[in-house]
Structure formats: structure tokens, C-alpha cells
């Protein structure tokens, strides 16, 4: 199931080593962009997990933000709730000097919070997936869009977690280098997510979700328990999304119910866009897409402030209309040899060269 260009073992290790070294060194080399690169690692997790169900399984979801938001709130509430009353904390608007975490408390709370985020997000995927994964195509897409927005509206009405005024995660102790800490945490998560998804795609389970994408009826006829597979795949993605949400919330230092946690019309759509931009249904595509998208986004937000979403909407339209195969899809069409496809000297009429999937 190798998705990337074919490489020999030696070059593969060299490329990986270089990528990891670049990732480790980035916040030291570009300290002023550290926050943006942290966000990029989180976005890579968003795109990778979206592609697992969207690209590999063919279930295009606009609602994966639900798991981001659930993880975010679960972690933040755990961090606070372990030591203080959540109700009092939100009533005090997270302010005041009476809510302090020392280093062991903060790390313990965060560790437990990450676990809580992952578990609750997976449970949410189990519950919601059992409901909506029976639908297909655009009905699933719109149902998940509804789920994402509804979750945000519910969070915005729930007083205990701060309602519309939002929730501030626990404030880190002074002797913690917060930005660097979350940078490496996000990077570790992104690498772990990548490896986990690469692994699961190499198993029989990976073949099963590809079979569901290619023809669900046939897959079912072959005896695959399709509903269980679909729900499991969504839960697998949600597990990582929950942790990503937990880290993202702590990194942002403020959780707004509809703009940060359950941001259906921003992050919910961005995930889709990143995966499509890089190349749906490939392993490296979402990673590349996330990098390119983050660059576009930062440029728009820096130079086109006030018009940034106009530019973004335009970008969505352009990509979807003119570039739906994505960067990797385009490369594969142009240079099939790079992807290990042997190009037949005689191309059968009407068949795209290199169109075969790896």
C-alpha cells in the first residue's frame, strides 16, 4: 500500500530523517512562525483523518469538527474540573488569581484531558456514526454539516461550559514554555497520526474501506459488515481528532463554541479542502494539501484582511472546479512512472494512463 513515490529503503530513511529534523528545528529557526507551524501540524491531523473516511472510504463529511470540538471541551473541562469546580470557573469567566495550576497539576490535567478528549470523541463518533453512516453520498454530507452546526449551537447555549462566552483552558504555569511545548506535542501527534493511518491502510481493514468506497453494495454482498467498518473507521479518525482538538484549544488559549470548537464553516470545510487540494485518497496528499493550504490561509489573513474569506471562498471554488484531482492526483497523471505505475506502450482508447489506484 505504498502511496508515495517509490523510493529505495535508504532514500526513504533519509527523507524521513530530513523531514523530522526540519520539523524539530522549525520553531528554533523560525520563532516568529512557530504558532503558524503548530497550527499546521494540527491541520495535518485534520486533513489526514478527514481523508481516511472522505478519501479512502468515500464518505465526505462536513461534520468532523464535532470530534475536534468534543475533544477540545472534554480536555479543557478535565483540566479545570480535576482541581476546581467547572461551574465556578466559568462563572468567574476563567479569570481571577484563584485558579492556578502548578507544573505537576497542569501536566497531569493535560495528560488526563488528552485521554478524555480522545475517548469522548470516539464515543461521539460511535453514537453519531451509527445514526448517520447508513446514509450515502450528499445526504451523509449534509447530515454531518447539520451535526457540526448543531453541536456548536448546543455548546453556545450550555451555561456550565461557558455558553456563548466561551471557555478558557487552564492557564499554564509560568515556568512552562507554552508555545514550544505545544509545538512539539502537535508535531508528535501529527507524526503518530500519519503512522497510524499508514498502518491501518496497509491492513485488511484498509482494503475493506477502499472496497466500500469503490462499491459499497458489492462489498456488502461479499460479506463485509459495512456499517461496522464505517463506524470503526470514523471512530479511528475521531480518536486523533479528539486529541488534536484538545491541543488546538490549549494552543488557542480560548475556546469559542462556534468559531473555534465547532467551527463548521471554517475548519469543517478547510479539512475537506486540504484533503482535496493535496489529493483525495492518497496518504501524502492531505499532508501536502495542509501545508499548501496553511500557506494560502496565512497569506490571505496577512495581506487581505477583511477580504480573507472572500479570497478563501474563491480558492475553494477554483480548486473544486479546476483542480479536483489535487496535487498528487495531478502528479500521478503527469508522471505515472514516479508512482511505480508502468505505462503501457499502447493506451487503450478512453482509458486514462496511470489512472489505476495504488
Amino acid at each position, binding site marked *: 500500500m505504498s502511496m508515495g513515490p517509490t523510493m529505495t529503503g535508504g532514500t526513504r530513511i533519509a527523507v524521513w530523517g530530513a523531514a523530522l529534523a526540519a520539523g524539530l528545528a522549525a520553531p528554533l529557526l523560525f520563532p516568529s512562525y512557530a504558532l503558524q507551524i503548530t497550527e499546521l501540524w494540527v491541520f495535518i491531523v485534520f486533513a489526514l483523518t478527514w481523508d481516511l473516511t472522505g478519501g479512502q472510504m468515500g464518505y465526505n463529511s462536513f461534520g468532523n469538527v464535532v470530534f475536534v470540538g468534543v475533544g477540545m471541551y472534554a480536555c479543557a473541562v478535565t483540566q479545570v474540573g480535576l482541581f476546581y469546580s467547572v461551574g465556578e470557573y466559568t462563572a468567574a469567566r476563567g479569570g481571577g488569581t484563584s485558579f492556578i495550576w502548578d507544573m505537576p497539576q497542569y501536566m497531569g490535567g493535560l495528560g488526563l484531558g488528552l485521554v478524555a478528549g480522545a475517548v469522548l470523541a470516539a464515543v461521539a463518533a460511535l453514537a453519531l456514526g451509527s445514526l448517520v453512516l447508513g446514509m*450515502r453520498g450528499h445526504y451523509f454530507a*449534509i447530515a454531518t454539516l447539520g451535526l457540526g452546526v448543531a453541536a456548536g*449551537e448546543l455548546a453556545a*447555549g450550555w451555561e456550565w461550559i461557558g455558553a456563548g462566552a466561551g471557555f478558557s483552558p487552564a492557564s499554564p504555569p509560568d515556568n512552562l514554555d507554552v508555545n514550544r511545548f505545544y509545538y512539539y506535542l502537535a508535531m508528535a501527534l501529527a507524526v503518530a497520526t500519519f503512522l497510524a493511518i499508514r498502518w491501518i491502510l496497509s491492513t485488511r481493514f484498509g482494503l475493506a474501506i477502499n472496497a466500500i468506497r469503490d462499491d459499497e453494495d458489492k462489498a456488502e454482498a461479499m460479506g463485509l459488515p459495512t456499517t461496522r467498518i464505517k463506524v470503526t473507521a470514523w471512530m479511528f479518525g475521531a480518536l486523533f481528532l479528539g486529541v488534536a482538538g484538545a491541543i488546538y484549544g490549549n494552543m488557542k488559549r480560548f475556546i469559542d463554541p462556534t468559531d473555534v470548537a465547532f467551527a463548521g464553516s471554517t475548519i469543517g470545510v478547510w479539512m475537506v479542502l486540504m484533503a482535496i487540494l493535496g489529493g483525495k485518497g492518497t496518504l501524502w496528499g492531505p499532508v501536502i494539501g495542509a501545508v499548501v493550504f496553511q500557506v494560502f490561509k496565512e497569506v490571505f489573513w496577512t495581506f487581505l484582511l477583511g477580504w480573507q474569506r472572500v479570497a*478563501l471562498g474563491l480558492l475553494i*471554488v477554483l480548486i473544486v472546479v479546476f483542480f479536483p484531482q489535487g496535487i498528487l492526483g495531478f502528479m500521478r497523471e503527469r508522471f505515472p512512472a514516479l508512482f511505480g505505475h508502468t505505462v503501457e506502450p499502447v493506451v487503450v482508447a478512453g482509458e486514462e494512463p496511470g489512472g489505476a489506484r495504488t
Partner: protein
Amino acid sequence: MSSILSNLQILTIAPVFNVQLVLDGLLIGAVFALAAYGMALVWGVMNIINITQGEFVVLGGYVAVLFADRGIHPLFAVPVAAAFLFAVGWGFYRAVIFRVVDKDLFISLLATFGISILLQQLMNTIFGSDVRVANAHLESWQALGRMVTVSQVKVLSFIVCVALGIGLMWFLKSSRLGQAIRATAQNARAARVLGIDTDRVYAMTYGLNAAICGTAGALIAMAYTIHPYIGLPYTIRSFMIVIVAGLGNLGAVILSGIGLGVAENYAGFILGAQFQLAFVFLLLVAVLVARNWRLQRQRRYLK
């Protein structure tokens, strides 16, 4: 929880509140039905689910706001909003939509989502993020011992909606273009063979839908409120109504629209206004899930 129970209690102690809720639901439901009819038109003819629906509604609303700001009665804005939005819809068809008409549904879904994000901020930049009203300077009737208030502008918007619905039905049934639209919906290829310019029909259909949305939006700005980011709920409402009513059944569209309006008003009253939008979106999921369960019993599914 206790507030929900006490709100329910109010409804049983003072049944006159039910009259108010049903009446308000009926009046706004007609507007929902109008926008939904436009969505059904585009969906049925072009096989596109138009996420931009809600933004077209809001844009129409801003036309009415602009009129009211200049001291012109916003009722005059209704035809202007329709004409303007027709041009906007036609333009978007010529620029973007015609490229995605025959593509995968998810592609057109995303493309219209992109347009909707673009329009949202464009409106936010041009008109500001405030909640706006197009003041129509109309009063309210009191009924049942001043317990029920009927705002005249809501009644007016209801009447305009009904008139437009009838007009649309006549247009699709009898006019030359209407017949071409219906023929294209039934079988685009056969229509092309018989000499119908389906590309033009698509452009007209998309423009017509935008015009319908614009009208609905102008009425909403007069009778209710608008702001740049309120579009998505209108898209979702339209979608929901079409799912329940099916494509091309005006009677069912009106009934579902009014049903949704009433349900929403009850939800807003019982759960509190802050949960009204959550109710709309959860109702969408519930409707879809219920539909799918019913189909699954026959080993079919929503597709």
C-alpha cells in the same frame, strides 16, 4: 430543565399562546416554503444542491434594507431584489455552476459552499456585521383580548409568498420557458435532442432560483431580521423541506414549510430562543435519520 417545564406549563395554562405560536409559524413558514421551492427547482432540474441558497436570501434582504435606509418603502424592493438576484444567479451560473452541473454531486456541493463563504464575507464587508431590519412602518393587530399580536408586515409577506407561489406554478406549467425547464428536468438528453438549449435552461433555472430567494430575503428583512452569517440556516431549512416534501410537489412544500415554521416557533418558546437554531439543525439530522431508517427496512437507503 425547569425552564422547559415551566414553559410547557404556560402553554397549558394559557392556551392562547398556542394561537400566537401557530400563527407566527404559519406566517414565516410560507417564506421558508418559497425558498425551498427554489431549491427543489435547482435540485430537480440541474441535480445540484445549492448551499448558496441562504446567502441569496440574505442578499435579497440587504436590497430591502438599502431601500428602507433611503426612505423608500421596502415593499418596492421586492421586485428589485428579485431582478438583482436573478442577475447574480445568472452570473454565478455562467462563471462557475455550468462547470459543475454534470460533475459529481459532492463537487457542486463544495463549489456552492465556496460561493456561500465568499458571499458571506463580501456582505459582511459591504454592509457590516450588524443585525438589520428593513422598516416597513406597519402596525400590529391585537386579537383575543390583546393576547395575540399579528404584525401586519408578516401578513403582507405571507400574502406576497402565496401570490408568488401561484405565479410560479403558472409559469412552470404554461409558459414556454417553464415547459422547457420541466422537459429538461424530466430528461435533459431528450430535451437537447428536441432542440431545447439546456444550457440556457440551466442558467434561467439558477437565476430564477436566486430571484425566488431574493424575494424571500426582502420579505424576511421586512418582517424579521437579517445579518451576513444567517444564510446557512435558510439553506438547511430549504433542504429539509425538500427532503420531506419531495421534488416538484408545491402543495407538500407549502405544508412542510408551514410545519417547520410552527415547529421552530414552539421549539424557540419551549427550549429558549438560544436553542432555536440548534433545533433546526438537529431536526435536519433527525429527519434524515428517520427517512433512512424507513428505507433501510426495505433494504434501500437515501442516495
